[in-house]
């Protein structure tokens, strides 16, 4: 008995591209619509347990470095004072503050470096941007050579709010 072999012809199966392209375009449109370009945000850490605000505890051997920020009536910066010395109110005031604190901190292997603390004492109506500038100037600088942030003081706290009279 002669065997008959059915001849299977080689057929090319073509994948359906249309649904995949549909889905891919949907995804693309979704990501395009939900995209929000947000600038990179950073932060400054502040540790302020209750009871330590503006109280010089006898346990702390080194008193905080006080930075006083005064404001004009419209909230702009009237002056920066560091250890009762006025550093001005121009753009360079915070650079001067940074230099003064740098001098005070001295070398980076200062044994008291970890215990140093900055206390920001600002007028009530002062714009917050100046406080950020003061915190930044008090805690470190950006190395011009490497672009890395060098921090010399990690501890920052606020004095009690100076509420306006009445």
């Amino acid at each position, binding site marked *: 008995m002669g065997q008959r072999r059915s001849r299977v012809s080689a057929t090319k199966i073509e994948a359906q591209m249309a649904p995949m392209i549909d889905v891919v375009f949907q995804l693309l449109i979704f*990501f395009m619509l939900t995209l929000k370009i947000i600038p990179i945000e950073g*932060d400054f850490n502040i540790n302020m347990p209750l009871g330590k605000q503006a109280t010089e505890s006898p346990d702390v051997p080194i008193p905080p470095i006080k930075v006083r920020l005064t404001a004009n009536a419209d909230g702009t910066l009237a002056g920066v004072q560091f250890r009762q010395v006025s550093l001005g109110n121009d753009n360079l005031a915070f650079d001067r503050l940074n230099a003064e604190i740098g001098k005070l901190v001295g070398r980076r292997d200062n044994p008291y470096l970890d215990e140093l603390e900055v206390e920001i004492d600002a007028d009530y109506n002062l714009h917050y941007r100046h406080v950020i500038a003061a915190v930044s100037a008090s805690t470190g600088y950006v190395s011009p050579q490497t672009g890395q942030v060098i921090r010399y003081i990690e501890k920052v706290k606020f004095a009690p709010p100076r509420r306006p009279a009445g």
Partner: protein
Amino acid sequence: MRYKQQQSTVLEPDMTPMIDVVFQLIAFFMLVTNFEQTQADERVKLPSDQLARPPEVAREKVLVVNIGFNRNREGEKTDPQAYIFEGDELIPVLDFGRRLKEEQRVANALYGPDGVKEMTIEIRADAETPTGLIQELIKLSQENGFEKFSLRAKQLVK
């Protein structure tokens, strides 16, 4: 005259390069889309500073507080009073203590009695917010057991 009979041919465009490009675009948008900063409020015009760098390790227990002003499309203040934004709700800063008390309860329930101490309050405040209000917020938070704070700012690249 003899006409040469032309065969009708269906031209199939090559889809491969297009799919390649589209996948590249999807990969790009997936990478740049930031799903983390959902708590950041766009109405807050943060101050900027060179030293403001993102934390090296992401914080786990965070409460984000957005403080800002009602502004028009040109960015001018329409109300001199600063508010805490919670969705569409505007809460005066000095009235935020009640909300902090609720957060304290939730933190204690979720993380135990020390949960509230481990939680960081991320303050995202408008550059023109009076500093006194930030201090009041910190004081209210301290009264409710919070100890860790972080002041957010845009990273300024020179």
